[in-house]
């Protein structure tokens, strides 16, 4: 068990150190999320329109932007492994594949979390949303959704990084599988932005947590078969 966590933290440390030095994916993710948030404002009118539909539109805009930005981050972290023969190294190492996988999930989720913090701030400014009022609830929603995105995303990214088309395939594989997370995150966020509160959001958060557990367990068992050479 101790070995498991030392492998896990070694992978996380390596990924975050690499990111700290190059700041490659995080910067692209943040800028991309910003860009999509702005583009939606152009597409749907300033601030996502007005009236009672605005809140649900904003929740949707927010999570679609996050999902797009996450794809970029994921293809980057797995692309790095491919370019530097990281997959061969992981395969050759005696480390538990589940620990390697969970390490990748944690480091991806940390990067996504930072990107989402900026995203929420931008949402508050550009769309005049009072994010502070329900900061705790939004944080819980963001964490449960991000774990799901990172769990499914890391698995698919490790596959798509090694296809002929490289990263192009990732969204095609990832988005349909992430539909439940997207729906749940949007609905829960909408509940808190619109004043519905916990009564409307708790089932959605529970759904995301179930999804997270199923995916983390299934993918950490299956990652072994992705690594083999």
């Amino acid at each position: 068990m101790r070995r498991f966590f030392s492998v896990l933290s070694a992978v996380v440390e390596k990924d975050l150190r690499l990111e700290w030095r190059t700041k490659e994916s995080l910067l692209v993710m943040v800028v991309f999320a910003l860009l999509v948030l702005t583009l939606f404002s152009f597409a749907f009118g300033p601030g996502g329109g007005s009236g009672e539909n605005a809140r649900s539109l904003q929740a949707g805009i927010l999570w679609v932007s996050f999902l797009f930005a996450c794809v970029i981050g994921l293809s980057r972290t797995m692309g790095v492994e491919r370019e530097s023969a990281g997959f061969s190294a992981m395969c050759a190492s005696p480390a538990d594949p589940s620990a390697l996988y969970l390490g990748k999930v944690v480091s991806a989720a940390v990067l996504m979390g930072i990107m989402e913090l900026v995203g929420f701030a931008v949402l508050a400014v550009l769309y005049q949303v009072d994010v502070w009022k329900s900061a705790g609830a939004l944080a819980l929603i963001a964490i449960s959704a991000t774990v799901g995105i990172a769990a499914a995303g890391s698995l698919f990214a490790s596959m798509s990084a090694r296809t002929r088309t490289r990263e192009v395939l990732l969204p095609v594989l990832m988005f349909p599988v992430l539909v439940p997370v997207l729906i749940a995150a949007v609905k829960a966020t909408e509940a808190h932005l619109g004043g519905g509160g916990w009564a409307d959001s708790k089932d959605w958060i529970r759904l995301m947590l179930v999804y997270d557990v199923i995916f983390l367990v299934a993918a950490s068992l299956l990652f072994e078969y992705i690594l083999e050479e």
Partner: protein
Amino acid sequence: MDHNERRAFGWLPILTLVILAFAIFANFFIAGTDRLQGPPQRIFYIHVPSAWVAFFAFFLVFIFSIKYLAKRNPDDDIRAHACAEAGVVFCTLVLITGPIWARPVWGVWWTWDARLTTTLILWMIYVGYLMLRAYMTEPEQRARFAAVMGIIGFLNVPIVHMSVEWWRTLHPKPVVMRSGGLRDLPDSMHVALWSSLLAFTLLFVCFARKRAQIERLNARVEEARAAREGG
């Protein structure tokens, strides 16, 4: 496919054709016309069996994927591939017949009903599965990746269905026909439905077998080519 296999299953396509012919006959001449929906209801006998076959096919992909990872028999990978491809064909049929049926009955081509939406997402997942296969060249690696995708894709089905159902119930219900269940069907409709179900299942088995057979031949051609180039 060796000689024995061919002899044992030579009758299957013929049997399928006979039952399929009967099912079409039953659809148009035995089953009565629905009092509320009129003739468009007859698409039911194509729509529902296709949906059943598609789900059955994806379940088989799941089973063969697990079997492949456990035993590493390349034939299980070929079977999973064949089932996925045939399954996508029937799933496409569901998505085409659905709107054709919905238009005259519900007045819209598409409604974001839980079952329809789940089928659409399922279709996307397995099209992704086939694309993943298409973009990989190394057979052993392709088989492993595809098996992982086949397992994950199927595990996802109940969660997708649940989330889509909740998503819809928070909105005003669309004008969706709620059938009173199978018990309400008259006998003549039962004949048409069950014969069609049997015919479509056999048709799926024929497609998948043929597809697997072609894939085995492809693998042999590849092997022979590699052997010639190597020697």
